[in-house]
């Protein structure tokens, strides 16, 4: 089959690309659009390193086809900071040292952003349940959870 022509929006920019049916959105982001912030940890939906937001919904880019991005608004880690101005979550992750090797970090940040957009005042349990699909092999999660709770408080103006 001929390559599909896909028109979509990535981090607010109109984007067009050609892709094969079997290419995942993650393949397209990384290999065609050179947005390598989203990581491939497992490629099977287990780890969340590939988390992106598609039309407001958090999804695993590794289990979604590139052609499915047609007409959607895709948000990736690359769109999180505003120029040099880091997103509050990014600042808090640094402050709390909520990362070590950093491979899981883009996925956690995107997932946490999606949580705070839905629920600006999550409990610790809600944070842990929401981040259940994001695996980290280094930090033990505690600092990540604290960074998210701290960001939520700051963003609420607390």
């Amino acid at each position, binding site marked *: *089959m001929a390559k*599909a022509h896909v028109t979509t929006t990535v981090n607010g920019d109109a984007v067009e690309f050609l892709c*094969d*049916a*079997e290419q*995942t959105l993650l*393949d397209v982001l990384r290999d065609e659009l050179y947005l390598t912030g989203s990581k491939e940890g*497992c*490629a*099977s*939906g*287990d780890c*969340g390193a590939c*988390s992106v937001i598609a039309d407001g*919904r*958090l*999804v*695993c880019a590794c*289990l*979604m*086809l590139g*052609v*499915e991005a047609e007409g959607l608004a895709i948000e990736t880690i690359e769109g999180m900071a505003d120029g040099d101005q880091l997103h509050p979550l990014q600042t808090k992750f640094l402050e709390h040292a909520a990362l070590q090797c950093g491979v899981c970090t883009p996925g956690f940040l995107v*997932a946490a952003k*999606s949580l705070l957009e839905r629920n600006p005042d999550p409990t610790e349990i809600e944070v*842990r349940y*929401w981040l*259940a*699909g*994001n*695996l980290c092999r280094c930090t033990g999660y505690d600092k990540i959870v604290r960074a998210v709770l701290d960001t939520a408080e700051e963003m609420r103006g607390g």
Partner: protein
Amino acid sequence: MTDYMHAFDLYVPASLEDAARLLDEHGTNAWIVAGGKDSFDWFKDRHRQPQAVIDISGLEELHGIRDHGGHISIGAATTLTEIEESELLREHFPVLTQAAAQVASPQIRNAGTIGGNVSQDARCTYYRDGFPCYRAGGDACYANTPTAMNREHALFGVSRCVAVTPSDTAPALVALEAEMVISRNGVLQTVPSEAYFVGPDIDITRMTVLKEGDILVAVHIPKTWAGARSYFEKIADRQTWDFALVNIALVAKTEGTQVVAARIACGGVQCTPRRLAEVEDLVQGETVGPDLETLARRVAARGAKALNYNQFKIPLIENLAARAIRSLA
């Protein structure tokens, strides 16, 4: 190995009719994809390489949660998140919204559908890893040998294969007496949820009644148990996302502390959701309390035959049954 998928042709039908025609045209080479959370896993492992992939997730006819008076219908391509967030379902059938909310992670629930959840294939690791076992058309079960790792496998209904139903929503639907609406040869048919799931004694290569060319269109839930008391609990190895070792769904009508009627189903213990019929009979007309819990515990796992490593599931079922009954107090 999990990385790239084989090259396939993707079809995005515009109507149910169109989808049925494509399925017919491509026969054994066709594969339905809804959210793709199970399908793409198979493709990436290269154990399934269908040439024609038919994406039904955009079909209008398969979407939405609607109140029809006597029943509520859920389109097969409705996502698990949409179910979890549905006020209508939470009000009528909280056992289902709770079950949907406990599937995997937000990422998976946002794209995974109810149709895919009840039609997903067995998770037996031997089968998934491509062993040529009975379910894969071979002549052995690799999970039922003296040294096999089978702590996740079945206690009941074994017939060569000892794989279990992995779905969290399936026991809830069985408890609720849901009906599955299937499009077969252009005609809509309705199958009770209990008959939708099939064990290895009926067909060892399938988990559901769906045959080549069939499309699950919707799930209808009668209002029989609307507003009834309910309980859902899932036990897994990890508190983060994981498949259930055992899950339990209960709906019950009560008058004070007396149980008028109850339906209970468990996942993870046989190839299909298992009705705890003996517990249902036993509790009917009885008063909830420690005595009833003890009796429920005693009969809940009757007839279970443990494999080498899944003995622990027997007290698990017994305790879950007791807790479900206790929740009615």
